[in-house]
């Protein structure tokens, strides 16, 4: 046979029993040419552009799924940060734009649309100010719109005014969606060093350096990696890293193939493969379980950071060999509510907010999908965010905070979002205040690492 039976069965098994899938095909669309002083005209132009450019996206994705026999879970769209597109508008409330994005997303049948976003790491323009003020209402009145705000970079430092404001915005988002456990806050991410080509939600947007339209792919395969790790319980670290590398290579190759094919079929340039290991709430499709497979009793115990560092690095090494267009976040994700192993580790008391913070130093994103008590103050959320931004800024990496102060809930309770967003036990936050610190105002200066020229 022209193919090796073992190879074919390995691939089939990955898909059939190890939850291997393409997590997302995300089409990036520039909306910069839609700008108009009249918000109604702007909305009309945005709707037309999205529904024209992305009209075949879902159909093509379904075709590819059939052809390759690999599930493609999400079809998504990312657009130019709306703060830029709407900056010329006389209207200061951008909620209607979010509603337009939602309508367009539903029309073309995508699961999420990202880009209700602003980049304010060094300061605000009027458009960014308006956008951030519109976020709570925008997320409360839409289903598929995702929002992100970049408040820090290694080059600019941390905009602490924005950090504090986002603390308040997150609180408001949760309050306005109290009937759904604060779901609004689950669609909002605060970033440091945000990538412009990330296909994953909630942080996807179409950056200003991107072409008119682009196809980005996010792969997923924690279940596959977990299985290979569990198969070699006695292997030393070299062998372990090597095995993960080889698996990451295979997973990423599929992303590359799907991306190339989608790009060809849609006539849209291929952007990047994001080789992140993105877990789902499905049993076994868990990053926490991979770490436990390496020999930890529970994710979150001592040794977790080292295990995650090894995993993250091996995934990158394998993935970078598999594609010449690796981008986005590309690492291991640790979203608590979306990872069955993390949920269990939290419930049993092994995984805490402090440990998660340490873990974010060595993996791809940050404090992701973490539910905290509803009475957590905006100042405390801002302080948690500031810590996370500092980790990103100093280590020249992306970090993010997606935290849900679940209304009327406290430690011991749970929130349930359903679908890929999953469910999460409420995590404890420190009872000691940082109010005076986060109210100082101004910017934490760019670190010495910024002076690279």
């Amino acid at each position, binding site marked *: *046979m022209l193919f090796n039976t073992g190879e074919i069965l390995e691939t089939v098994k990955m898909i059939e029993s190890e939850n291997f899938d393409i997590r997302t095909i995300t089409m990036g669309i520039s909306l910069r040419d839609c700008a108009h002083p009249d918000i109604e005209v702007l909305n009309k132009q945005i709707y037309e552009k999205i529904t024209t450019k992305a009209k075949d996206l879902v159909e093509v994705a379904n075709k590819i799924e059939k052809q390759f026999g690999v599930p493609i879970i999400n079809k998504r769209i990312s657009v130019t940060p709306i703060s830029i597109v709407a900056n010329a508008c006389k209207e200061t409330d951008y909620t209607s734009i979010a509603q337009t994005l939602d309508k367009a997303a539903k029309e073309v049948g995508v699961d999420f649309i990202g880009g209700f976003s602003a980049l304010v790491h060094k300061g605000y323009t009027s458009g960014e100010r308006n956008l951030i003020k519109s976020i709570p209402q925008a997320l409360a009145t839409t289903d598929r719109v995702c929002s992100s705000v970049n408040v820090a970079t290694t080059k600019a430092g941390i905009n602490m005014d924005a950090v504090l404001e986002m603390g308040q915005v997150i609180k408001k988002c949760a309050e306005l969606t109290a009937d759904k456990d604060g779901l609004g806050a689950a669609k909002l991410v605060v970033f440091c060093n945000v990538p412009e080509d990330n296909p994953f939600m909630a942080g996807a947007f179409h950056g200003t350096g991107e072409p008119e339209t682009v196809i980005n792919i996010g792969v997923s395969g924690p279940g596959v990696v977990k299985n290979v790790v569990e198969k070699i319980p006695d292997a030393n670290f070299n062998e372990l890293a090597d095995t993960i590398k080889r698996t990451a290579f295979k997973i990423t190759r599929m992303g590359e*193939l799907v991306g190339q094919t989608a790009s060809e*079929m849609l006539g849209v340039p291929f952007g990047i493969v994001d080789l992140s290991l993105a877990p789902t709430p499905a049993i076994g499709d868990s990053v926490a379980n991979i770490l436990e497979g390496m020999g930890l009793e529970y994710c979150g115990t001592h040794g977790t950071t080292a295990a995650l560092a090894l995993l993250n690095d091996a995934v990158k090494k394998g993935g970078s060999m598999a594609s010449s267009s690796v981008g986005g976040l590309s690492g291991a994700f640790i979203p608590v509510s979306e990872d069955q192993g993390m949920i269990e580790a939290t419930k049993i008391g092994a995984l805490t907010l402090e440990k998660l913070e340490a873990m974010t130093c060595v993996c791809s994103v940050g404090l992701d999908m973490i539910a905290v008590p509803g009475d957590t103050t905006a100042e405390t959320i801002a302080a948690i965010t500031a810590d996370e931004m500092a980790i990103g800024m100093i280590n020249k990496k992306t970090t993010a905070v997606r935290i849900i102060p679940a209304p009327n809930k406290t430690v011991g309770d749970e929130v349930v979002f359903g679908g890929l967003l999953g469910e999460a036990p409420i995590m404890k936050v420190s009872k000691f205040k940082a109010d005076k610190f986060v109210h100082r105002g101004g910017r934490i200066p760019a670190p010495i690492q910024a002076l690279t020229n």
Partner: protein
Amino acid sequence: MNNNNSQERAVVTVLGSDKVGIVAKVTATLAEHNANIIDISQTLLDDLFTMIMLVEVSDLTNGFENLNEELEAIGNDLEVKIMLQHEKVFRYMHRI
């Protein structure tokens, strides 16, 4: 997808407990759709019946998706898993 001249191939994988008529039904369906079988192999993997076929799908009478659906339906009838996947999947994943 390059649908012209070049030969396009796909891999059919059948997994499940062995039953009378699996090969007959699958090959009959392939023939109906004008899918030429290039190679075929059968093995037992952990007591699981495994058949892998390499077929040519350049001149399918009714398209790739229809063939895929029909094979899936046969699989459901026979209580085995049948998958049709373009050969590119395997070439990409295991070869550079």
